[in-house]
């Protein structure tokens, strides 16, 4: 993603301490206008805290936040063009759906008719017009989620913060709502920051993802980049699954490198990292779908022998766990392209594994 000259949102070295505990550590990132940006990380890693600093509910202990060129330091929540959709939705229990959605509009200079029009448009956007007169406790969880979204969008914020917006929904509704969210974002053009601990949700929704761990941003990038080129072992583990092996560099020639991997019992060839030198120890990671499974020894580089220890048949694909010469296990994902069972390796079968040099992920510690 090309860096624009003046980013829409710039977070500059922001930290947050609660007493001696540092919930957010030195986070810096920029977000472009109209982007869907996901903050992804495990429980307690500081996602909500970062969001609350953007909304103005917490003051950063260090660092600054610029929105549209304006320094947000000291600007109270009610003056920020930033709205938040709360994890608990936080609907006003004593107001109807319509009053909830229209609540923020009373602060804007507009006639009663304009206000009613806007509320109706918002209710249409989230398909809740028939429920306008209901109270929050008279509608379902998914409907409440949409009321919260409509309420946060009604004042046309520059930036919308969504804290685990789909966490309270069941799986089917969640998937359907993800696409609804994306289409609403497209139609309104509002910049979204979505907090989630669900990696699939982050990948589906976001243009770019920031992966957080213990208050720090580990990596920022488009989903494919973060998945295929994880910067740290944490990121590699957190997104998708990966099997990791210790390895030592034996030779580097141009873009290629050769490594010994004790677990494989053989040398393998990979793409070199910048500045890689022979003798360096690092971690080699392989994602299950990047490894090919063969019954007969194939030609080419990076061929490893093994034995099927475990297999799970899912129909369209199968997951194998293969015992390697060094005794460790590797996960392999194979698509069941053929119908005859004979083609598929079975328990205790001797098999061959291979992978492209570009498929291996090299991680320095």
């Amino acid at each position, binding site marked *: 993603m090309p860096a624009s000259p003046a980013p829409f949102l710039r977070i500059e070295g922001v930290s947050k301490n609660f007493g001696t505990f540092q919930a957010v550590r030195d986070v810096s990132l920029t977000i472009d206008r109209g982007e869907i940006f996901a903050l992804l990380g495990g429980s307690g890693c500081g996602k909500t805290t970062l969001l609350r600093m953007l*909304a103005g*509910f917490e003051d950063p202990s260090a660092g600054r936040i610029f929105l549209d060129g304006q320094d947000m330091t000291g600007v*109270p*929540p*009610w*003056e920020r063009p*930033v*709205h*938040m959709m*709360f*994890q*608990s*939705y*936080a*609907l*006003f*229990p*004593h107001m109807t759906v319509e009053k909830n959605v229209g*609540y*923020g509009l009373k*602060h*804007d200079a507009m006639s009663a008719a304009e206000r009613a029009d806007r509320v109706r448009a918002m209710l249409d956007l989230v398909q809740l017009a028939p429920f306008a007169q209901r109270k*929050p*406790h008279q509608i*379902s*969880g*998914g*409907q*409440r989620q949409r009321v919260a979204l409509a*309420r*946060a969008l009604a*004042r046309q914020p520059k930036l919308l913060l969504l804290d685990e917006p789909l966490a*309270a*929904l*069941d799986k089917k*509704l969640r998937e359907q709502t993800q696409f609804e969210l994306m289409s609403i974002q497209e139609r309104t053009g509002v910049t979204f920051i979505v907090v989630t601990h669900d990696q699939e949700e982050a990948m589906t929704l976001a243009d770019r993802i920031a992966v957080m761990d213990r208050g720090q941003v580990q990596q920022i990038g488009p989903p494919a980049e973060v998945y295929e080129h994880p910067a740290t072992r944490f990121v590699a583990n957190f997104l998708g699954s990966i099997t990791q092996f210790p390895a030592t560099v034996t030779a580097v020639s141009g873009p290629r490198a050769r490594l010994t991997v004790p677990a494989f019992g053989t040398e393998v060839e990979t793409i070199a990292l910048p500045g890689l030198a022979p003798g360096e120890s690092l971690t080699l990671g392989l994602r299950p779908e990047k490894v090919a499974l063969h019954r007969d020894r194939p030609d080419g580089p990076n061929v490893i022998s093994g034995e099927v220890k475990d297999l799970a048949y899912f129909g369209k694909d199968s997951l194998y766990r293969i015992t390697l010469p060094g005794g460790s296990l590797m996960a392999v994902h194979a698509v069941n392209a053929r119908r005859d069972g004979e083609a598929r390796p079975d328990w205790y079968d001797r098999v061959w594994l291979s992978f492209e040099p570009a498929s291996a992920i090299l991680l320095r510690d």
Partner: protein
Amino acid sequence: MKRRPWFLFTTLVFGFAFFYVPILSMIVYSFNESRLATVWGGFSTKWYVSLLSNRQVGAALMLSLQIAVISASVATILGTMAGIALARYTRFKGRLLFSGLVTAPLVMPEVITGISALMLFILMADWIGWPGQRGFTTITLAHITFSMVFVTTIVQARMMQADRAIEEAAMDLGSRPWQVLWDITLPTIFPAILSGWLLAFTISLDDVVITSFTTGPGNTTLPLLIWSKVKLGVTPDINALATLTVLVVGTGVVIAGILLNRAEARRIRDERMAYRSHD
């Protein structure tokens, strides 16, 4: 096999009897034809009729009602503010002292509260010449100070259960803190405020001890009137008056309880709904 919990049952019966038999006998004897409190002379409502025409009782009742309404209203305003402050601002300097000061009167013997109020009024009269005479104002002030505590406790408990995110959402949507208080906080805790008012009202209405310390000549509230009359012997018209008082106070307490219960039930239902997903 389920054993009859006879022990619990007997305790319950005796407990209730201990509490309610005196009240019941009072109600029964208020319909007594005879003038003698202990001799049943047949059913009659004449004491209620004579009560209605008794100017002294009417004046005392009016005074009591006025004091109760004013002191309950002021106590509700002050108590609500204190309750919100205690629940919301958990880290201001001297919070522990403040919350101690607010709740101490709950356990303070009424005599002490009454004496200290009296002392204050006497000292103030000495220093600033006010209050020149004790009566309506001093009684009302004393009632405010001790009934406020109950409002504070009820409001604080309700605020502790309230969802802070709702207030933040309102702030996020452009409302300043005082607007949030008005639009969101007060409506959601309204049942607690109302039951606080009712409680303060009934407490003020039937108070004897603190009132007798802070009253002056010619200001006789209903409980004081009953008290002074009983000293001359229990008569059926006192029974009638007390029966009416029980009726009013009982109704107030029951309504307060229902309001609190209903708000609690609604909150639980809302929470349950919140965790239920789509139909």
